[in-house]
């Protein structure tokens, strides 16, 4: 057991300070201390992506990031992407296109898709498939996830065009 460290994080726009062992994983800080249970632990080896969150503008697997590494970081989880009164386009699109079943991969998948569309606002199907290849889904076979992400991109781009 190591000495606890003072850690400061901004999560979904809210500032937090807490004491954590250096070895404590970001996923458990989010889930067990901040009660953000959207991100899930599926493998603890970076393979499944259920724990995906955004850290300083990049998708990370929070099961293999130490809390200490996240000190000072700005983090967005699924809980920060939309609210019951205003779901994000991606959240709506996943429902519309049946892009989820058991829901366990969904928070990580949508969080990853959100960053993917920041990185590449108008992806091809192949780019979407490659872009989410760090996130495993056991239920959907990905076909409807890909469809949902492409549809969300089209909606977002359509709205942008309409605004211009």
């Amino acid at each position, binding site marked *: 057991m190591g000495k606890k460290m003072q850690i400061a994080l901004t999560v979904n726009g809210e500032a937090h300070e807490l004491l954590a062992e250096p070895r404590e994983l970001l996923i458990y800080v989010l889930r067990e201390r901040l009660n953000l*249970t959207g991100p899930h632990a599926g493998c603890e080896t970076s393979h499944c992506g259920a724990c995906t969150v955004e850290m300083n503008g990049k998708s990370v697997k929070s099961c293999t990031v130490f809390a200490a590494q996240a000190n000072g970081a700005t983090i967005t989880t699924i809980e920060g992407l939309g609210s019951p009164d205003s779901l994000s386009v991606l959240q709506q699109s996943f429902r519309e296109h049946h892009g989820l*079943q058991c829901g*366990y991969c969904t928070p990580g998948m949508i969080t990853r898709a959100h960053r993917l569309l920041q990185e590449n606002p108008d992806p091809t199907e192949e780019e979407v498939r490659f872009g989410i290849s760090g996130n495993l889904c056991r239920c959907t076979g990905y076909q409807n996830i890909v469809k949902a992400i492409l549809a969300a991109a089209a909606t977002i781009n359509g709205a942008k065009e309409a605004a211009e």
Partner: protein
Amino acid sequence: MNDLTPTPQERTAKLKGLGTSRKRVEDARFTQGKGNYVDDIKMPGMLHGDFVRSPYAHARVKSINADAARALPGVIAVLTAADLAPLNLHWMPTLAGDRQMVLADGKVLFQGQEVAFVVATDRYVCADAIELVEVDYEELPVVTDPFKALEPGAPVLREDLAGQTSGAHGARRHHNHIFLWETGDEAATNQVIEAAEVVAEEMIYYHRVHPCPLETCGCVASMDKVNGKLTVFGTFQAPHVVRTVASLLSGIEEHNIRVVSPDIGGGFGNKVGVYPGYVCSIVASIVTGKPVKWIEDRMDNLMATAFARDYWMKGRISATKDGRITGLHCHVTADHGAFDACADPTRFPAGFFHICTGSYDIPVAYVGVDGVYTNKAPGGVAYRCSFRVTEAAYFIERMIEVLAIELGMDAAELRSKNFIRKDQFPYTSALGWEYDSGDYHTAWDKALAAVDYAGLRREQADRVAAFRRGETRKLLGIGLTHFTEIVGAGPVKNCDILGMGMFDSCEIRIHPTGSAIARLGTISQGQGHATTFAQILATEIGLPADSITIEEGDTDTAPYGLGTYGSRSTPVAGAATAMAGRKIRAKAQMIAAWLLEVHDGDLEWDIDRFVVKGAPERFKTMKDIAYAAYHNAIPGIEPGLEAVSYYDPPNMTYPFGAYVCVMEIDVDTGTHEVRQFYALDDCGTRINPMIIEGQVHGGLTEALAIAMGQEIAYDGIGNCKNSTLMDFFLPTAVETPHYTTDHTETPSPHHPIGAKGVGESPNVGGVPAFSNAVHDAFRAFGLRQAHMPHDHWRIWKIANQLGLHG
């Protein structure tokens, strides 16, 4: 005067009932990260439990020293078999009539076996304490090959069974033998095969795999010593069965146990069984008086909780020269691992494997299955299939291909020639199943036309010629499958688990303002029950699906049910839902008659209302009736509007389908590309086409994983070689192809709404379709049989052994 608008079409649309692609009600919480899975549960004072596991596959446990672990700050308890023995909980019964160690009792029998249970204030302290537990092992000889396990001098695995010459399923002929289960007429089958014009013989291996849901298994057990109530939240596909087992094991009366399955992050069979983690968490909570959480990590999940398959299937199939099948003989050597913990109905130790005559009219057949102990993890669950049905479908669909080679016949034509004809249903198979309905030729012809089968075969012939001329290094495989499943277990007369009949149930309460709640004995793990069961009810009782809450998984509120696996929810609980809805409607009719002052026989049901025959302007909607049920003193009718139905299915259902996989194979690298996958499913009446399509996509992807790379393999000393997601293949979006779905609709004649179940069809049919594509690509070069998984290295090896690398 009642207003006759809206139109019948508008009223039907408003219900969002059967046949509509209703969007899922579950999605609101899941897309916002507000699901409630077991690891999301937090209780005041909650402790964490985790296991010390065996690094050895077979060893004597000479001593366990937990002093250092107990001394670590934050450690509350370390439990071993010695602690559980006074409670008689160091062993537990399995679903298959065997018993299984909860914690190592004198020896360990597989790598990853539970040896001690550490309870601590948090998961980090738990992990530290596990490292401090010293276990002294003495290694014993290991056997991981079921054939070697049955040799005379093989190591004795189950010393606890010494001298027992019979088990739960009859005679044991060797110390590592569990049972021989037989059905069919062996003498007659042998006679037919020996006299046959053509015989094909092959060993078909369906390798050991693992359901590997994205959420691992886990639970939170909480003993409230003040009230004497035990609550267990967990990843349970059958919560009521868990409650009953927990009561029998602990002696706590069943009414004092509440089992809750919260949201489940995929099950696929992995969450059917009762695991040592559940037992130890409950004991730890009783001992400490605090809630105890146990959550597997991925290695624990892949190494220790239920595997699937591991069937060595030796087949002989006979036919006339022109391709009429005359007989089928199958002997299976079934590797059950260290304990027989298969999840099958009690009287079926090999599940429904004897559906292995498939879609074909085979006059005589025999199946014998030998269950064997080895130093591997226990399990044998139905991984996205009804009990052993995927093994059966793979076996017959491979045997058909091998027979086609033997006959020099096209495999599609051979199938078509031997299908059970539409006019033969209901059809009793040689192994005793009564197939309820089917129209195989229509489905098959539609599938072959959709993919231009003749054109594909021409292209394949051209490709083989070009390959031989040295113009290409890629081969084309056409993988065919026509599968028949048997799902919806099942009739109480022959299906039970631990003596409990495999009925299922639904209880409905209609609220005064015309909305409702229905509770079922099943539990969704992603199938969308909250969406689809409301659709069944909407059509039955005429209230909009959006006004019906579906609740499952809490044994304190839900009626008793046997849970969700083996595609049984729609065939059994779905039927119970329709039947309970019909009871509601029957009472509603009496109430409507009183309201309209007519005889109830003068009323007829019309979408969402009872109408006076011949006077369509005189009616009462279900909403009106619901209100009346709570606001009137109606002579001879009790107030309220509720119903419960326990449904005992008269028969199984038999979904079927026709799949075609077109695969490009690179002979030099062994890599493959699925160019086209066409899946036609017939699941009878279609409740929600959107959800059906989603189930097919998902099941096909699990089939892709199994056929093309997934395996749980062991080395010679019993080390599990695939215990992380680094080594255990789960396809990403990149490896997963695009699927084309299609359907025919042959309703089940005995199911109240004609539905048959679909969640598992794509896995059952998908595995042989992918595997047959690989085999078919090499058929022209002499390949008969190559075992799965067909990963790049193994495909390369096929090519190499056929001399295709020059």
